[in-house]
C-alpha cells in the first residue's frame, strides 16, 4: 500500500515537474497583437514599443481585405511624416500579455483613391512585403524607431499587427521535481518488489532472532523474551518452555549442575572453559530431580528459587507442579519447541509420548514414564537416586541457585564442572535450549 502510494507520488511528482518544463512552460516568445481597427489602412507603433519586449523583435502583419501588406521600420519622424494626415492607428503599449493598446488618429475616412503604399521608400531601414501576410525581424538599434504596417491594394484595410520577442524562460521545478520524483518512484518500486518476492515465496523470508552473547536457554519457568510474558508456560503441563535466561540465571543454573557430560558445550564468557552447557535450569531440577522436587522444575520459570525453598517440602511439590510431571518427559520437551506466529511456543511435551520414546531418559528415575501415576511414583522413586546422584548439591546448591538467580552473591559457587550426573542434566533440562533454533527451521 505504501509502496504503491510512494510509486504514485513519485510518478505524479515526475509528471508535474516535467510538465512544468514542457507543456506548462511559458512560451519562449512574448507575443502581442493588435487587431485591425479604426479607419485607414495604416498602423504604426509608438516609439519604444518595438523595443519594449527585448531584442530582436519580430513583426508580423496580416491583411484584412486587400491582398498586399507592407511592413516597414523607420525613424519615428520619417514614419510620422510619411503617414502624414492619413488616418491611422497607433499601437501605444501593452494592455495585457497578449494585447496592445491602440489609439486611432485622424478619424476622418480616407480620401478616395488607392491606399498609400509605403513599399520601397528609401527611408525604411527594414521592410517586408507579402501577400496577405508579411513578417520581418529587426534588432533594435539606438534611436526612436517605429514600424509602419499598411494594407495595400484593392479594398485594403488596416492589418493586424503582431509583435513577438524572445524571452528567457526558466524551469525551476524541473530538476528538483525529477530528482524527488525519481527517488520516490524507486523507493516505491523497491518496496513493491520486495513485497512481491515475499508474496511469491509464500511468507516472510525472515524472522527476528535475538542473538548475542547470551545463549538462549529455555527453562521451565523462564519468561519468554521474544513472545513476551504472554506465554506463560502452564506450570502444570510443562516445565520446559523455551526461554532465554540472563547470564546470571544461567550461571545460577549452571553452578549447581551436578552432572557432567554435557551434550552441548557452550562457551560462557567469563567462566572460562567449557561448561556443562546443560547449564540450564537443570541444577534446579537436578536437585529436585532426585526427590519429588522434580516436578518442581515445572514450576513457573521465574522462580526456580522458590522452588528450591520449597524443596524441603517436597512432598508438597507434587501439588505445586503438575502431577503429570516427571523428569523423563522433561527431557525431550524442549527439543520440540517450534516456531509459530512469531514466537517460540514451547511445545508441550506430550510427555507421555515423547518422553518415553526418546532418550535413555529411562535410565532416570523418571523412567516410570506415565505422568499421572508417575507423580506419585516419582515421589517414591526419586528418593533413592537423589542421594546417589548428588548428595552435595541438594540443599546447599539449591539455596545457592536461588541466590544467584536473584542476584545475591552466592558463596557456594560450586564448580560447574562437576562431572556429576550428566544424565540428570540431560533429561531434566531443556538441554536443547540451544537447539530449538536449529530445529525450528
Amino acid at each position, binding site marked *: 500500500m505504501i509502496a504503491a502510494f510512494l510509486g504514485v507520488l513519485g510518478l505524479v511528482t515526475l509528471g508535474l515537474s516535467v510538465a512544468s518544463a514542457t507543456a506548462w512552460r511559458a512560451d519562449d516568445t*512574448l507575443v502581442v497583437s493588435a487587431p485591425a481597427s479604426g479607419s485607414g489602412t495604416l498602423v504604426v507603433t*509608438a*516609439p*519604444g*514599443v518595438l*523595443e*519594449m*519586449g*527585448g531584442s530582436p523583435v519580430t513583426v508580423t502583419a496580416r491583411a484584412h481585405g486587400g491582398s498586399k501588406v507592407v511592413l516597414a521600420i523607420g*525613424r*519615428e*519622424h*520619417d514614419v510620422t*511624416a*510619411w503617414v*502624414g494626415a492619413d488616418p491611422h492607428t497607433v499601437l*501605444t*503599449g*501593452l494592455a*495585457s*500579455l497578449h494585447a496592445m493598446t491602440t489609439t486611432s488618429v485622424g478619424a476622418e475616412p480616407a480620401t478616395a483613391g488607392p491606399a*498609400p503604399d509605403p513599399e*520601397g*521608400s*528609401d*527611408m525604411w*531601414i527594414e521592410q517586408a512585403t507579402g501577400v496577405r501576410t508579411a513578417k520581418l525581424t529587426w534588432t533594435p538599434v*539606438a*534611436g*526612436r524607431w517605429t514600424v509602419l504596417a499598411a494594407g495595400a491594394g484593392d479594398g485594403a484595410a488596416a492589418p493586424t499587427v503582431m509583435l513577438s520577442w524572445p524571452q528567457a524562460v526558466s524551469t525551476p521545478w524541473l530538476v528538483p521535481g525529477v530528482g524527488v520524483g525519481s527517488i520516490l518512484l524507486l523507493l516505491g518500486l523497491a518496496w513493491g518488489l520486495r513485497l512481491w518476492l515475499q508474496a511469491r515465496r509464500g511468507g516472510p523470508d525472515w524472522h527476528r532472532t535475538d542473538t548475542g552473547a547470551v545463549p538462549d536457554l529455555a527453562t521451565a519457568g523462564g519468561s519468554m523474551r521474544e513472545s513476551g510474558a504472554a506465554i506463560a508456560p502452564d506450570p502444570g503441563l510443562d516445565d520446559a518452555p523455551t526461554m532465554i535466561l540472563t547470564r546470571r540465571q544461567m550461571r545460577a543454573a549452571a553452578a549447581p549442575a551436578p552432572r557432567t557430560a554435557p551434550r552441548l558445550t557452550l562457551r560462557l564468557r567469563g567462566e572460562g572453559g567449557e561448561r556443562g552447557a546443560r547449564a540450564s535450569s537443570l541444577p534446579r531440577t537436578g536437585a529436585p530431580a532426585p526427590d519429588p522436587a522434580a516436578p518442581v522444575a515445572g514450576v513457573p520459570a521465574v522462580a526456580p528459587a522458590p522452588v528450591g525453598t520449597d524443596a524441603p517440602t517436597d512432598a508438597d511439590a507434587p501439588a505445586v507442579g503438575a502431577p503429570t510431571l516427571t523428569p523423563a518427559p522433561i527431557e525431550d520437551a524442549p527439543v520440540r519447541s517450534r516456531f509459530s506466529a512469531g514466537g517460540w511456543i514451547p511445545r508441550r511435551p506430550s510427555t507421555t509420548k515423547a518422553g518415553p520414546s526418546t532418550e535413555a531418559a529411562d535410565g532416570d528415575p523418571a523412567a516410570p514414564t506415565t505422568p499421572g501415576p508417575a507423580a506419585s511414583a516419582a515421589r517414591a522413586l526419586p528418593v533413592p537416586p537423589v542421594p546417589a546422584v548428588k548428595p552435595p548439591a541438594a540443599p546447599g546448591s539449591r539455596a545457592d541457585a536461588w541466590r544467584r538467580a536473584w542476584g545475591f552473591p552466592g558463596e557456594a559457587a560450586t564448580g560447574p564442572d562437576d562431572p556429576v550426573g550428566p544424565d540428570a542434566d540431560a533429561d531434566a533440562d531443556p538441554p536443547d535450549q540451544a537447539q530449538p533454533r536449529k530445529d525450528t527451521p
Partner: protein
Amino acid sequence: MTAPERRVLGCGGRAPRRLRSVGAAVAAGACLALAGCAPALPEPHPAAVAAVPPPALTIAQTDRLLGAIGARLTAADTALSAAGLDARLSGPALASRTAEYAVTSATAGAKGLTALQLNAQALVVPSTQEWPRTEFVVTEQPDDLTSPRLLVLQQASPRSEYTMWGWARLLPGVKMPATATPTIGSSPLPADAAGLIASPSDVVAHYADVLLNGDASAYASTFAAPDTYRASITGGRAPLAQVAAQANGTFTETYTPTPDQTYALSTADGGALVVTAMSTASALTITGASLRLPAELAAVSGGALAPDAELRNALNVTYADVVAFYVPPAGSKTLIQVLGAEHIRTSVTGS
C-alpha cells in the same frame, strides 16, 4: 438528505453565506497571489528625442539608394532613353542626362555620356527631419579616369523617392573640406544662412556676376583662383564672340542661378558645402550670313531643328549648370572655392 447537506445546499442559511464569503476571500487572495506572481508588463521606454536630429539616411541606406539610382540609370543609359528615368533623376541631372541621350543618339556615340560612377567614396548626410532632404556623395573615380563626381541626392517630400538631382565634376586639385561623419550627419543650412562669409544664395549670385564680368566683378576677389570652371566658361565664349563679330551679329551669355535650387550642408569647420543649379544662356545673332547647325546641337533642339540646318538669324543655347562651392565660415581668411561643376547643353533654339 442529511441536515447538514441541506444547509449547505440551501441558499438562505447563515452557513452558506459564511461559506460564500470565505470562498470570495480565498478567490480574492488567489487572484492577488497570482497577480503577484505574474511578470510586470513591459512598457515602452522610447529613447529620448535627440537634441540634434539623426542623419536622415544610414550608410547602408545610402548604398541601397545609390544602387537603386544606378540600376535605373544603367537601364536608361543602355536604352539611351530617359523613359522612367525621372523616378530616380531630377533637376539638372535629369535634364542633362536626357540631353545627353539625344546627343549620343544623334552622333552615333561620337559624343558620349558623362560617366557616372555611383560607388560612394564619401558621404555628407544631412541630419534633418525636414524636406527636401539633400545628401552629397563623392564618388570614386570613374573608369574613364575623369575626376570623381559630387552627386547631389535629394528627397523632395516624405512619400517621394530620393533622386539624383545633379552631379558635378570635381575640379582638378580641389580638396574637399572636412565634414561630419555620416553617422552624425551634417546640418543643412538654408540659402540665407548666416555664419558664413556669404550666405549660399549670395555666393551663387556673386559667382554668376564673376562669370559674367570676370575680374571686373566686385566679387572676383572673394573666389579662390585658379578656377578652371570659370576659365572654361569664359574660354568657351571666345569662339562664339568671334563668329558674331564675323557675321555682324552679337553674342551674349548670361548666368542665372536657378531659384530655390541652392542647397547647403555645414562642414566640420562651420563653413558650408553649397551646391546650386544655374542656367547659362548663350544668345548668338548673325546678320547676312548663315550658320550650319551641328548635329550635336540639333539633337537637343527637341526636333525643331534638323542637323546641318542653316541658321540665318539666331542661335540660342541653354546649358544646365551645377556648381559646388566651399564657403568658409564667417571671419575666415579663406576664399570661397569652387569645388566642382558641370555644364551640359540642354536645349538649342535657332532660326
